């Protein structure tokens, strides 16, 4: 049995940053990369299923990204993933979630997992789309924002709860194989031990090209996307009136605000 976990290496902005000369992205030197927070939870969910199963289960992590994404895959290996696959080609740069989904779907066709997990969304661009688009391309059933899951590897269906607005939960049953997007809080992700981090550093990461996946270059990057970035810019924002001074002065002003605005008893 096999579980495929699609992960993303996300980018956060440094405090000061510059927009690229073409105005369509941020200069890469101002980006700080890490494994997407949601993906920590989907990997953990796969690990828990593996550990509870009575049959052997392989957990495979896949990431679409340049060489630096190996760092995020090593994190997955250190947390217990059995294998890691990275897909890259320069043509992939500038892909939207749909183009990325085509690549993940191609990997899934090659790996034939029993279930595919992805994070609900990524912390950088937050499309909340890649996992569900992948499901459509595979023609697999899919569900989003899963906060509880009962699934035994190889089972023909799974029962899950999805988290709706306002804290309402909706329990559903889904045919398998399926794509589920996993929400924060579904579990408590483990920390990798120093020993497993060392071991992960020595594990191979399989690199797949577009040719190996039989995906033409025209199907990825900007030509293969469902939208195109025209420009990226820093919006004009409202800014709070900042309360300056030392801590005691700041606290004094805060106290005053509470008395005025909360009508609190003092």
């Amino acid at each position, binding site marked *: 049995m096999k579980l495929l976990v699609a992960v993303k290496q996300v980018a956060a*902005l440094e405090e000061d940053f510059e927009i690229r000369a073409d105005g369509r992205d941020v200069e890469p030197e101002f980006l700080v990369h890490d494994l997407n927070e949601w993906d920590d939870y989907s990997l953990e969910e796969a690990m828990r299923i593996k550990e509870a199963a009575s049959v052997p289960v392989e957990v495979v992590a896949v990431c679409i990204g340049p060489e630096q994404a190996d760092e995020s895959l090593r994190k997955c290996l250190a947390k217990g993933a059995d294998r890691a696959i990275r897909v890259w080609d320069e043509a992939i740069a500038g892909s939207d979630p749909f183009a990325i989904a085509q690549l993940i779907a191609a990997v899934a066709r090659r790996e034939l997992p029993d279930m595919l997990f992805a994070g609900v969304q990524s912390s950088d661009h937050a499309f*909340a789309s890649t996992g569900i688009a992948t499901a*459509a391309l595979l023609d697999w059933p899919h569900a989003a924002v899963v906060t509880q899951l009962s699934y035994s590897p190889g089972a023909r269906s799974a029962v899950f709860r999805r*988290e709706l607005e306002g804290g309402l939960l909706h*329990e559903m049953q889904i045919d398998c194989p399926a794509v589920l997007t996993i929400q924060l809080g579904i579990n408590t992700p483990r920390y990798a031990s120093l020993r497993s981090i060392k071991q992960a550093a020595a594990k191979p990461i399989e690199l797949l090209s577009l040719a190996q996946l039989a995906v033409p270059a025209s199907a990825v990057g900007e030509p293969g996307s*469902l939208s195109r970035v025209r420009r990226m810019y820093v*919006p004009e924002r409202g800014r*709070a009136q900042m309360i300056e001074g030392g801590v005691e002065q700041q606290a004094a002003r805060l106290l005053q605000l509470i008395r005025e605005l909360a009508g609190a008893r003092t």
Partner: protein
Amino acid sequence: MSGVLVIAEHRRGELRPVSLELVSAAQAARRAPADTVSVALIAESPEPLVPAVSVAGVDEVIAVKVAAQEFDPDTFEAVTRALIEARKPSLVLVPHSIDGFSYAAALAARNRYGFASDVFRFEYQQDLLLATRGGYGQKVNVELDFPGKPVVLLALRASVFKPPEGAGTPRLSSFAAPALHSRLQSREFIELSAGDDVDMTAAEFILAIGRGIGEEANVAQFRELAETIGATLGCSRPIADAGWLPKSRQIGQSGKTASACKLYLAMGISGAIQHLAGMKHVSTIVAVNADSGASIFSVSRYGIVADIFEIAEALRGQWERGQ
């Protein structure tokens, strides 16, 4: 291709308010009087929902009767696709909601429609559709277009577009759902079990804590501060997920909405969009955060860049001394 198709969202027999926000957005996208706004009600029993969507600006309500009693991604995807093929709208609007997450990207991917999610602004410049969403944790805006796409599907952020005022008299039509086999079954809804008896929606003064408190042992300090200053203690998602406070105290999209709150004191909360969704009715937000770049400061009336523990201690000290 012309016209705007809106897919209404409903749950347990009630229209979700975001559906009407989409109607306003659709009206704004009308380029010519011939551009009609049609709202599709995809439901086991669509008729009772018709009055709720018969608002100003809706030209047509399309009732689509389906077998699924509650939302199901396969049903919504198949029906919306059939509607698009029959009506040929140039723009399709769905909510960027949990239900929207579950089928919009699948619909776009399978049919290669132009697509963007979490869109909070869009406009036509002549025939060019431009959509704006956030990027890099909402620190930048990203403007998108959809070259070569005759049909564009936009998943719109909730609480951005104001629902229309006044009733309308749309014509009512029905549309036969395509034959479909859903691979999911709805089982039941489960209400968030109250971890304690607090009602965050009624609280007028909330002290909310976030990731910035660092560890569970620090919750006590803020609980005591909340008691001292007469605030109800709330939190952002990471605190509830970690089990440091009950889920019933979580403010945000998947938690509670602070709908009666006059003063919201956010300590150590960065201001993720999902958390802000629960604070939209708050009269005054005061944020304390060590990171001067935290997005919470862009929605707050007052801000303090400082160590939250030092501010908490100083505030409590001054309060107790009655300064």
